[in-house]
């Protein structure tokens, strides 16, 4: 069916022009009435004699480039509105070049698409503006309250005046004094907090809110220490009267560097959220990428199944996309998602079907005439390569993304929607388990493997509970003489069948399952108990233990450490904590407050595997740390890799300038030892001196050393 028939049937409303070799445009559809509003056309030759639309005139500059390029390409002008006496025309122009010398300009009347897009975006943008307005009101109010509260303290302002000013606001305000007693509040705050009866009730409910949304005391202490405020949107699930969304601002007020008040501002944004959801899902369309949503995807998958033709289902997950949003902002994140969608769409072509089924998850259906595992695996790799190229972030430089892909094929991996999706999800899970940029095609064995991992997880839970793990100690020595200065505790696990499960197997399982907290508690107690045992042989020895990012962010971590120290009657100065640089990427401030508290009681803090993370000088200067442990990868290759020598020298120099100790990890040869000694590195750990050993063996070595 050609364009004339499509136009006649009302399927399209499109003007088509052929780009001629003499660089003129010839109108192929002169009967379309509005064609003469955008171009002047010679009635006999049908050649375009003038371009009447300013927008089109501008677009033709890009179109010329497309037509004059030797390769197949297509570009779009985007939507524009052409004024008209009656109804404005909504148009989109497309320039195409098939690469074989045939070039066209198509101008589509996109009134329906325009209306659809306008309706969808109208509500979405109204909500966006409302949300920004709420934030602005809170920021502005916060700013004014800061000033006026300082004036109250100085006796320049009247309390009554503030009370009157806040009573009529649409924002909830609660102001506490430095002792956390109610100073002022308003009606909106009491309504949001459902605190109608007493003042005490208001403060109680406020603290319940803070607790429920995890704005804990450490967090507040950190705001106070940094003299900074915090604002964010929280979901108060256990709110009296029913769960709701709140835009919340928490701000300390200072008088001569001393905390005088806490200001809490909140606006109920539940309606905005309800509206947002309906705006996003109203047409089963993802407004950001203009792709279909998860619901539409399932319906499409049903359709593909009914055809009984072979196809592959690819679930594409962008790794750690949350970090992109957190580090570069949601606008950049959204821009990147749109470009990911575009790249996937371009790669997969017209016969495929692409949808955005989650925040950072896309699903693709692609037809295959031959469905071998290697073919669909290669196709998955192709998708990955399409996303490998650098993304130019909106005004924020360049970045690369990592993706994991899970694949299933119809009919061999499932006969219905549920099975195909479940199996693709399982394959994706294994890709994630393997790391980044992995493509996994579903195999029945994956199910077995999943069962194995689940069993191992259950076994680990029991082993931790029944104290079946042990610790081994690896000495950290004086590089010049090999004498033990301190040691690192390492968890070891031999299961009931006597099989040794390596830490690089069970620790990731613990991390992924949440068992890391139980494992961390076990390690803490074991280390404290060991210190008690060692007190007879080395009363001042220090043991370092590894703490995961998730543990250090646990609000109860500090209390747990203090309780364990008290229970075993050891000194806090015998404990050292090792963390990796990555824990600072998220929740830096919270981590900093916890570390500062740990240091305050005498525990030292080391950065483990230093040099492999983001190694920011800014963080090193700001954070409370004592020691850097040079990652073993730099030490291992220093005899063959000059870069590693330079890096080690730089780390040692950096530590010296910042007054930090340095431990070289993984020292295995005399050559490495001598190089490190020449760089004034004092401490080391590695097989050249000792392997990790059971506690009794460590005690024996201490005795022998004496």
């Amino acid at each position, binding site marked *: 069916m050609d364009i004339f028939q499509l136009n006649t049937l009302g399927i399209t409303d499109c003007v088509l022009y052929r780009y001629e070799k003499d660089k003129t445009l010839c109108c192929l559809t002169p009967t379309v009435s509005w064609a003469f509003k955008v171009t002047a056309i010679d009635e006999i030759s049908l050649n375009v004699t003038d371009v009447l639309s*300013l927008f089109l005139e501008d677009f033709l500059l890009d179109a010329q480039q497309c037509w004059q390029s030797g390769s197949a390409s297509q570009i779009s002008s985007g939507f524009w509105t052409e004024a008209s006496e009656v109804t404005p025309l909504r148009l989109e122009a497309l320039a195409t070049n098939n690469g074989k010398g045939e070039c066209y300009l198509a101008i589509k009347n996109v009134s329906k698409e*325009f209306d659809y897009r306008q309706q969808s*975006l109208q509500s979405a*943008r109204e909500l*966006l503006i409302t949300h920004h*307005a709420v934030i*602005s009101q809170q920021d502005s109010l916060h700013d004014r309250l800061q000033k006026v509260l300082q004036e109250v303290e100085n006796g320049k302002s009247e309390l009554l005046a503030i009370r009157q000013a806040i009573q009529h606001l649409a924002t909830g305000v609660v102001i506490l004094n430095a002792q956390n007693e109610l100073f002022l509040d308003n009606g909106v705050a009491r309504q949001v907090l459902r605190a109608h009866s007493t003042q005490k009730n208001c403060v109680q409910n406020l603290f319940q809110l803070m607790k429920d949304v995890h704005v804990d005391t450490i967090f507040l202490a950190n705001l106070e220490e940094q003299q900074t405020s915090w604002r964010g949107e929280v979901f108060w699930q256990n709110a009296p009267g029913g769960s709701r969304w709140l835009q919340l601002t928490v701000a300390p007020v200072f008088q001569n560097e001393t905390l005088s008040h806490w200001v809490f501002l909140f606006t109920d944004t539940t309606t905005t959220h309800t509206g947002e959801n309906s705006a996003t899902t109203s047409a089963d369309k993802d407004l950001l990428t203009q792709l279909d949503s998860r619901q539409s995807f399932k319906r499409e998958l049903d359709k593909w199944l009914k055809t009984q033709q072979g196809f592959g289902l690819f679930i594409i997950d962008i790794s750690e996309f949350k970090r992109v949003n957190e580090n570069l902002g949601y606008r950049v994140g959204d821009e990147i998602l749109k470009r990911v969608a575009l790249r996937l769409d371009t790669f997969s072509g017209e016969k495929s079907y692409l949808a955005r089924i989650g925040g950072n998850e896309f699903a693709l259906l692609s037809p295959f005439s031959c469905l071998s595992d290697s073919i669909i695996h290669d196709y998955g790799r192709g998708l990955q390569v399409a996303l490998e190229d650098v993304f130019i972030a*909106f005004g924020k430089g360049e970045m690369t993304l990592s993706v994991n892909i899970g694949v299933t094929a119809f009919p061999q991996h499932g006969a219905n929607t549920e099975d195909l999706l479940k199996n693709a999800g399982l394959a994706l899970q294994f890709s994630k388990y393997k790391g980044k940029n992995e493509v996994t095609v579903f195999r029945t064995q994956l199910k077995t493997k999943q069962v194995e991992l689940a069993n191992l997880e259950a076994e680990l839970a029991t082993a931790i509970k029944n104290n079946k793990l042990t610790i081994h100690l690896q000495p950290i020595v004086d590089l010049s003489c090999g004498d033990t200065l301190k040691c690192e505790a390492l968890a070891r696990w031999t299961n009931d069948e006597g099989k040794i499960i390596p830490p690089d197997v069970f620790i990731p399982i613990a991390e992924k399952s949440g068992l890391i907290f139980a494992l961390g508690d076990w390690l803490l107690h074991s280390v404290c108990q060991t210190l008690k045992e060692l007190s007879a042989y080395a009363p001042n020895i220090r043991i370092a233990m590894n703490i995961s990012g998730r543990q250090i962010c646990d609000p109860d971590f500090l209390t747990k450490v203090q309780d364990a120290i008290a229970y075993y009657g050891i000194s806090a100065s015998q404990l050292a904590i090792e963390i990796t640089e990555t824990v600072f990427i998220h929740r830096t401030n919270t981590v900093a407050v916890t570390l500062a508290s740990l240091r305050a009681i005498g525990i030292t803090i080391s950065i483990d595997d230093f040099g492999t993370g983001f190694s920011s000088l800014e963080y090193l200067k700001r954070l409370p740390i004592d020691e850097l442990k040079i990652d073993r990868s730099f030490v291992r290759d220093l005899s063959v890799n000059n870069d590693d020598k330079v890096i080690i020298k730089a780390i040692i120099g950096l530590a010296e300038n910042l007054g930090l100790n340095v431990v070289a990890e993984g020292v295995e040869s005399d050559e490495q030892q001598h190089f490190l000694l020449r760089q004034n590195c004092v401490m080391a750990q590695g097989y050249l001196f000792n392997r990790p050993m059971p506690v009794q063996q460590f005690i024996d070595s201490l005795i022998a050393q004496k």
Partner: protein
Amino acid sequence: MIQKKICLLGPTGVGKTSLVRQFVDGIFSEKYLTTIGVKIDKKQVDIGDKSLQLLVWDIEGVDRYCGFNPRYLRGAAAFVIVVDQTRSQSLLEGMDIFASARESYPNTPAFFVVNKSDLPSEWYWTKEEIKERQSRFTGAFNTSAKTGENVEALFQMIASAVV
């Protein structure tokens, strides 16, 4: 008559279309209707004894649903960054858009407009902070598309700068 292309850029909902409607037709509507794509309006402006026609490109607001497209600025004699004084965020976003536009068009005259001056300011930016940002532009105005305050003056100044 000389024609000059002027582009209006800014975040969503700051009042770009309202400024154009006020300038071209002298009308204002309280109803917010989001712009999709681009719409071009024309208006003749007299500068001394010269007349020129401004081709005002009203471009869809930049937000999470629509990115900034530098292509629209091609051939522009000037561009205007519009922000809204009732939303602090709009200033940050406006400056982001300005930075992106500057990357592609480092020498095109740029004007800074803080719109909705008829409404109470709800941002915490100090006068100094605003001044510092204004200083990066060829000219700056506080406007109200609703009352018409400074709208004519804005386009007159732009016309004088590009004539």
